[in-house]
């Protein structure tokens, strides 16, 4: 899950050298699109199938209208422009769909549970999420390292002037990469919808976490994002489970229960700063 968002974002951040914070909005839009289309068509699969191209087109539009004017600006201005976009989309969704959270229902086939280990039923949908995540990982890896398009993207990332001089249409390429990123975020949103709720601003907590993932993994490295997503997930979850227990042994129950989850949230950031202090460019910086 985290990887899907982080992968899309690392494409935009690293390969295009563009600081884009409205990625969370794209997650949200994906979730809303899928939910609305599912309700409209009455079929979850059809809804998702229609929503994916929609997020792609949305990415294209956003790039053409706004983002491409910002490539040559400094990071600060990119941060602000995308901050403005976040505000806009959050409110837009709130006006369009109302402030209340939506719930998206799963088709019966996906909402059951399977028993992998004895006595531990596991929801089917979470397996689907893991599967989609892995599939996306493999596809991006293939796309970037094994195809001509991927080679062009990498060439554009390492030296856009040179690539442009060799006749590569960088503008078109960047539009495409951005749209792919938007699409990945949208898919993440669709997966997320049924697990949590679909509401305005749902993307932001994820955004920060996925930025953490990217930074730990090294900006622009898809493999790095993949490994870092797993690491951050592990740190976060184990922290959440173990810390309250550990704290309970040193202080009284109430204090421990209060402090535990918050300290666990800190853990991810502590992890990231340790990584950055030791390796200022992330764990797996892209070569060159």
């Amino acid at each position, binding site marked *: 899950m985290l990887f899907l968002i982080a992968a899309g974002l690392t494409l935009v*951040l690293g390969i295009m050298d563009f*600081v884009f914070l409205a990625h969370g909005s794209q997650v949200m839009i994906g979730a809303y699109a899928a939910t609305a289309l599912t309700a409209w068509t009455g079929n979850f699969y059809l809804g998702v199938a229609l929503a994916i191209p929609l997020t792609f087109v949305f990415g294209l539009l956003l790039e053409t209208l*706004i983002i491409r*004017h*910002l490539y040559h*600006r400094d*990071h*600060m*201005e990119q*941060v*602000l*422009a995308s*901050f*403005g*976009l*976040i*505000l*806009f*989309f*959050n*409110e*837009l969704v*709130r*006006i369009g769909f109302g402030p209340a959270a939506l719930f998206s229902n799963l088709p019966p086939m996906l909402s059951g549970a399977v028993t992998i280990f004895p006595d531990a039923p596991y929801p089917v949908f979470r397996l689907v999420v893991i599967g989609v995540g892995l599939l996306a990982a493999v596809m991006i890896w293939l796309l970037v390292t094994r195809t001509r398009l991927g080679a062009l993207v990498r060439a554009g990332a390492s030296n856009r002037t040179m690539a442009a001089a060799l006749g590569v249409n960088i503008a078109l390429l960047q539009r495409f990469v951005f749209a792919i990123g938007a699409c990945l975020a949208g898919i993440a949103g669709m997966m997320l919808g049924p697990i949590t709720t679909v509401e305005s601003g749902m993307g932001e907590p994820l955004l*920060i976490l996925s*930025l*953490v993932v990217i*930074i730990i993994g090294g*900006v622009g490295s898809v493999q790095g994002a993949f490994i870092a997503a797993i690491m951050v997930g592990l740190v976060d979850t184990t922290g959440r489970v173990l810390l309250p227990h550990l704290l309970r042994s040193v202080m009284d129950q*109430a*204090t421990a229960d*209060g*402090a*535990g*989850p*918050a*300290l666990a*949230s*800190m853990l991810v*950031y*502590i992890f*990231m*700063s340790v990584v*950055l*202090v030791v390796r*200022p*460019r*992330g764990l797996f910086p892209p070569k060159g």
Partner: protein
Amino acid sequence: MPGVFLTAIRDGVKQHRLLWLLLGLLGLFPIVTSVADLPFWNDVAMRIMILGMAAMGLNLILGFGGLVSFGHAAFIGLGAYAVGISQFHGIDSGWLHTLIALGLTGVLGLVIGFLSLRTSGLYFIMITLAFAQMLYFFFVSLEGYGGDDGMILDRAEFAPFDLYEPLRLYYLIWVSLALVSLMLMMVIQSRFGLVLQATRSNAGRVEAMGLNPLRFRITGFVLSAMIGGLAGVMFANWQEYASPAIMHWSRSGELLIIIVIGGMGTLAGPLLGAIGFLLLEEFLPEIIGHIAPQYAENWMIIFGPMLVLLVLFVRGGLMGLITSRFRGGG
């Protein structure tokens, strides 16, 4: 060449003149509100001054030093909690609170700055954000001091002034803002300030001249953290409340917006930006309320695109608009 320098100095004076003009207006503002009987606007002006102060501090490293810190709200929060926690333990003197806040933000600024400045660019933005998030969750976890809900507090005792008397708090904030402005003006013109600005344009050359850019950056970072702490003390006294929400990451974003609206790397810019930002925050819902009342809550739908347009078309923020008007109009 001397001509270039002369215009630079003249521009500088012009910009500072605006700063002192704004400060003067803010100083006289309570007279206007008492004549017009609009005490609510004193409140808005206080918020403008507090946020403006914090933004001016951040602008020292951002505008002049070229370091985008995305975690500056943490220092405001630390300042606010310095007031809250010392009051909790029976220390009521505001002077002492200020001292504690400055010390605390100074030390933490040193630690965070030292660790963060090992990185640069995007990584720097993110690591400062990470530290801010750490502090945020740290204060959320402090159940004894209110945890998530924060702590209610009384205005501190700034002997011999009683902050509950009308306008005392207003002028306390105003005087601190004026002092911060004065200090920043001197810092920027000093040798230290010049080197700091040089590290922004070319850190390698500064190093080649035998100076250690890192030292100047850390000093700048600490200084701006302490200004943030001072703003936090004022914030706690103004709001009579300290909570983790003060240091939420969106507030760091707000500070960046304020600086960019006003104009990066100028002294008066952040203050101008704070005025612009908070006035928009007050007026936009009202304006929308007149046109389409059901959407008054959603003022950000206008504000968001405005921000995008500002970034796209106005370089240098309000400050840039004003100075180009001066030059163009002749």
